[in-house]
């Protein structure tokens, strides 16, 4: 085969590779470049985080505004300390906001829902949300239910 034809075919092959990468990036992983406004960290302590994991989403009114970036145990109070990276475009979270661990559907994953409070002071980078609501653990609920029955 002629060298020129080979070069054209190889060029098409490379192009197919780049297009595949673009499809994987945009269509499959929903990669978006525009959200590089930076994030800020907000902490919250929970008594029980249930099945919350790193990369779980953080929502306000159902809209995803960030994700959980770190989970560790506080060795003094034995509560779970959850670090959330909130999108920089979401400002004006008041300091008395509530963070609750919720479940997506019946069997879905856990996520954090933030309800906005009324305080005029605003959460900044590294601040903590004090008003938290732990995950609902199904076994505990069933336990309570049974205790009431008998």
């Amino acid at each position, binding site marked *: 085969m002629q060298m020129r034809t080979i070069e054209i075919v190889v060029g098409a092959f490379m192009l197919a590779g780049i297009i595949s990468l673009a499809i994987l990036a945009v269509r499959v992983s*929903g990669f978006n470049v525009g959200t590089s406004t930076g994030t800020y960290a907000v902490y919250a302590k929970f008594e029980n985080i249930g099945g919350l994991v790193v990369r779980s989403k953080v929502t306000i009114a159902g809209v995803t505004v960030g994700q959980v970036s770190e989970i560790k145990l506080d060795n003094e109070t034995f509560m779970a300390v959850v670090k959330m990276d909130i999108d920089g475009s979401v400002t004006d979270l008041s300091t008395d906001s509530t963070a609750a661990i919720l479940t997506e559907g019946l069997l879905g994953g856990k996520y954090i829902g933030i309800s906005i409070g009324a305080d005029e002071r605003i959460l900044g980078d590294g601040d903590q949300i004090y008003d938290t609501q732990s995950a609902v653990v199904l076994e505990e609920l069933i336990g309570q239910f049974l205790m009431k029955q008998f």
Partner: protein
Amino acid sequence: MLSRLRSLGQYSLSVLEVLGRAGSVWWQAIWRRPRLENLPLVIKQIYQLGVLSVVIIVLSGFSIGAVLALQGYNQLVQYGSESALGLGVALVLVMEIGPVVSALLFAGRAGSAVTAEIGLMKTTEQLSSMEMIGVDPLQRIVAPRLWAGFISMPILALMFSVVGIWGASLVGVNWLGVYEGAFWATMQEGVDFKSHVLKGIIKSVAFGLVVTWIAVYQGYDTEPTSEGIAAATTRTVVYSSVAVLVLDFFLTLVMFRF
């Protein structure tokens, strides 16, 4: 007892020797300054190794994606969560099956051809004649093939994943009736570019390196007889398949936490 010990020692020394020779072939071919005038040779090899493998990659990718969708649907529908089908198929394809299966196919389709070609060149003493006229066969023959494998493999793996996901969406959405929006939305929600797609690409680059390295070395080190070529071709396919699977485990282990 002593003779057994001796043969064990001999065996381990010969393994070390093979590793050393393979390493030096690789080192001399790749790390010596890549020459720009060899670019046409690399392009020709990308055609031979990459472009000619596209058909088998696309066909296998489509079938595997379709089968994953069928099997996944059967399991997921029992829990009423068949909308997670897109996520499951995409993760499995992008992170594991895409790179691994395309590397195995690449070893069978392209690796064996490279070994046979170089082995025949050695058997018919083309390599030594090249040396006689002052052309370095490592530069002229080995290096372009190594580079071509290194470049083609990730492209083939990406194509495999994309076609597989397309096949899965055809079976899942158009045939089994999974809701299309949920199929793509769960996929985009769950698949992360950096922590999933990029890991798959890193894997396929490593596989391309290993498979072409084994193929080229087996050809270069062939015993110059027709049985020698046959044995070397077999060894290429066996060694690279095993190497890909073992390396896949260790790469996954290393990248697991990131």
